[in-house]
């Protein structure tokens, strides 16, 4: 008996070891590699070669199939993402259940085998279509959003399907077991006919997207304009959704639920991080889908016990994480760096203004011919201007000194020539904006400081020129307008409120 069990083994040596270790021979199903003993077997060079050259028939079929699927789903998924309907495939996969149940009943009643895949798929397709129809009706006739429409269709259709399945189980039709998952394929067991179907679907989808690119773009971004151009939004929406139903049903039966859903969402969501341009986004998304499919299939062909569909999903999520981190504009790293840089620029500008204003006040006190540039602002004064800690302040001053904006002496800091120009620019922007707010936004002079604080850093040259024109009669703007409110060195709290 032990021999019989042992002879069933996968990789003989490991299996034998673990069987002996388990200590009760004869009662084990089969020594499976558990987490504990599944040391990762690096594939040999020969195996690498075998997989990379696609020497195995099944590897070829699956790689072709999933790569094409990635292309098709990546393309159409972009539009779904922008329409906020990413989860359509998931809703559809549930909505097909009543169709499958009804198809089964009809086929079994007609005396055939109830589990003819083609018949079940037809039922699934019809109910997928009905589901999408219901989604569109809900979307266009109520104020509910897409997510609610998807959820309603998903749960109600699935509930009907469950009730029908329960009835089927009471019918003497036979073989109904496993019906609810019967049409869900597994990527690894893809057949050539599946791969060809996917290839054709990919071609159809790419072509349709190419032909209808402008229309679909408008559908996603500007429905009002699309309507005014004489396109029926509902018709376009239907075209898009018919493509989605088609690709979903094909994907469900060839690669299963999880991969079908993921392929429509993840590549396009990842592509969103690399570009703002729709055409590029579609292409990047298709490429991510394709490469993800290829890589995942390759890993699954190299490493034992790696289910193909889930591995592809994980590869695509990896691509998504990389995109989230490294995307050039929207990526987390890029955004953090940009934010840091902006924060520093703002802080330094604040410092310059503080130094300038301190100097300005000092100048008033001595009321001699001193220019601002020669006056030194003592640290004690500066620290009172804003809610800076001494540490922060000295760090800022150091970095401003490095940038040759300030020179620090014993009694405090003073502006360099370069720093003076920069400070004048900042102060001028600040005061112009304050004046504008006072005159045109009816904000009390005591409150404008804080508002101007946020704007001064992002006022462009054109804006300044414009402001000068508007304010030309109201303020003497050359060379430096006076502060429209009382300057004080009273400490201000975080919100900029004067104590």
């Amino acid at each position, binding site marked *: 008996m032990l021999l019989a069990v042992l002879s069933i083994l996968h990789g003989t040596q490991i299996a034998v070891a673990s069987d002996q270790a388990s200590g009760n021979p004869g009662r084990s199903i089969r020594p499976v590699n558990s987490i504990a003993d599944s040391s990762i077997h690096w594939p040999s060079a020969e195996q690498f070669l075998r997989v990379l050259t696609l020497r195995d028939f099944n590897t070829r079929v699956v790689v072709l199939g999933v790569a094409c699927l990635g292309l098709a789903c990546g393309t159409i998924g972009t539009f779904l993402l922008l329409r906020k*309907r990413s989860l359509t495939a998931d809703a559809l996969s549930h909505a097909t259940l009543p169709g499958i149940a009804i198809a089964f009943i009809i086929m079994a009643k007609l005396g055939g085998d109830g589990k003819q895949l083609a018949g079940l798929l037809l039922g699934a397709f019809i109910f997928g279509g009905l589901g999408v129809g219901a989604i569109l009706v809900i979307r266009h006739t109520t104020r509910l959003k897409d997510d609610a429409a998807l959820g309603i269709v998903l749960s109600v259709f699935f509930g009907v399907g469950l009730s029908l399945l329960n009835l089927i189980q009471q019918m003497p039709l036979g073989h109904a077991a496993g019906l609810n998952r019967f049409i869900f394929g597994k990527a690894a067991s893809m057949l050539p006919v599946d791969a060809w179907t996917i290839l054709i679907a990919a071609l159809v989808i790419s072509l349709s997207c190419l032909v209808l690119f402008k229309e679909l773009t408008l559908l996603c971004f500007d429905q009002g304009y699309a309507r005014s151009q004489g396109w029926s939004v509902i018709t376009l929406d239907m075209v898009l959704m018919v493509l989605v139903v088609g690709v979903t049903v094909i994907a469900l039966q060839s690669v299963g639920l999880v991969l079908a859903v993921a392929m429509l*969402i993840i590549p396009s*969501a990842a592509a969103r991080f690399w570009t703002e341009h729709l055409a590029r986004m579609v292409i990047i998304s298709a490429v991510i889908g394709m490469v993800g499919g290829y890589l995942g299939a390759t890993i699954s062909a190299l490493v034992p016990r790696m289910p193909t569909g889930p591995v592809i999903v994980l590869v695509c999520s990896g691509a998504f994480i990389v995109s989230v981190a490294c995307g050039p504009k929207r990526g987390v790293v890029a955004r953090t760096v940009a934010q840091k840089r902006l924060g520093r620029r703002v802080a330094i500008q604040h410092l310059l203004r503080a130094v300038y204003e301190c100097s300005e006040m000092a100048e008033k006190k001595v009321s001699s011919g001193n220019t601002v540039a020669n006056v030194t602002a003592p640290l004690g004064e500066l620290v009172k201007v804003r809610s800076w800690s001494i540490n922060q302040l000295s760090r800022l001053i150091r970095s401003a000194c490095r940038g040759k904006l300030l020179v620090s002496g014993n009694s405090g800091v003073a502006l360099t020539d370069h720093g003076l120009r920069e400070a004048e620019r900042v102060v001028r922007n600040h005061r112009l904006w304050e004046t504008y707010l006072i005159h045109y936004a009816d904000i009390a002079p005591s409150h404008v400081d804080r508002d101007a604080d946020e704007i001064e850093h992002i006022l462009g040259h054109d804006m300044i020129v414009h402001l000068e024109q508007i304010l030309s009669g109201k303020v003497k703007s050359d060379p430096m307008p006076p502060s429209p409110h009382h300057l004080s060195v009273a400490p201000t709290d975080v919100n900029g409120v004067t104590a």
Partner: protein
Amino acid sequence: MTQWSILDTWIVIVGSLCAAACALPGTLLVLRKMSMMGDAISHTVLAGLAIAFLVTHRRDPATMFVGAVVIGLVTALLIQLVGSLGRTEIGASMGIVFTSLFAMGLVLMRQAIDHVEIDPDCVLYGAIEASYFDQITWMGMNLPRAAIINGGAGIFNLLLIVVLYKEFKVSAFDPALSTTLGINANVMHYLLMTMTAVTTVAAFETVGSILVIAMLIVPPATAYLLTDRLSFMMCWSVLLAILAAIFGHVSAVTVPTWFGFGGTSTAGMMAFCAGLIFVAVWLLAPRHGVLSKVFHRCILQLRIVREDVLGLLYRLEELPPSHELSTTPALLQGILGVGPVLSTLAVSSLARRGYIEHRSGQLHLTNQGRRAGRHLIRSHRLWESFLQKHLHLASDHVHEPAEQLEHITDAAMQNQLAERTNQPQTDPHGKKIP
């Protein structure tokens, strides 16, 4: 309903409690466009079960439940994280998180637990019908555990929502405003997600997944068509959820018997009934319903035709007597270019209200009708003057817009128009303004 027994009563009670418990957070989820939350968690549960099994080597419902709750929370947190960190649309971030976790679960299963069945349907999901067997003695009463758990979840959700009502409301409708009010929208969001995760998984364990997924979405979405106020919406969705649960079970045990079956899945039929209620409301809701929209449109159209008839008769009266035209209903219909049903309806309702009268086959305005007609024509001509004077439309282009605007102009607006156009005596076509 010959065989209604205590079993059915408890099924209905458990179903109602579960439905009500889900409908409360569901309302907020629908408002935040996160309706698919229940479905997402039902997929990721697999990964939680696999991990819980690998850690404990046990498959009993309690262990599986803990695994599912943990993964439910992780799902909720990750969805929020992906949504905020990646600025990804929330539906997409749900899809990304649940497919990835589901895939992870499948890889774990294949790698490590290929010879133990840990399908959620096998080890976690309960059935609402079977919940009756699992009874707990509480205060001397035997109560199904499912009723206590779902009732508890419902009360917990209710308390949380009552206590933090304002915070939930503001953060659901206007996250930016909530920040200025000192409410951390993110914290509220995580709180809602936690509430959802615990409620759904607790309900999965006692009544199965489809009931939860349906009750989280369908009743709140239905309520959204009935009211604009959050508090009403919550009450409605709880009420509708309970209705769906009751009718769902009743139809599950009765409808199939008409066709010779023994009954069908109660949870499936509850979801279906929730759908039926949605369709009914979608058709019949007082303001947002399809039929009522059609009805209101018809009423509006009828009013417009009625006014047009008055206007037309008034214009005909204005003409010098030599132009005397016959004013038979058929002729009116021809001039106004509306269908026979509408014009007949309009004429008869005008006659009933005493605006016009039939005299020798012709229609004539009564004094009351003449006043109304004068008002309409005055509005029309004032609008024409206004459009020409202030919007600089050519005089041959002002008739069409005025034709539409005249119907929505009341006396106050008319006075304003007259003021803005300096009380003109004639309109751009030279006709007298009455």
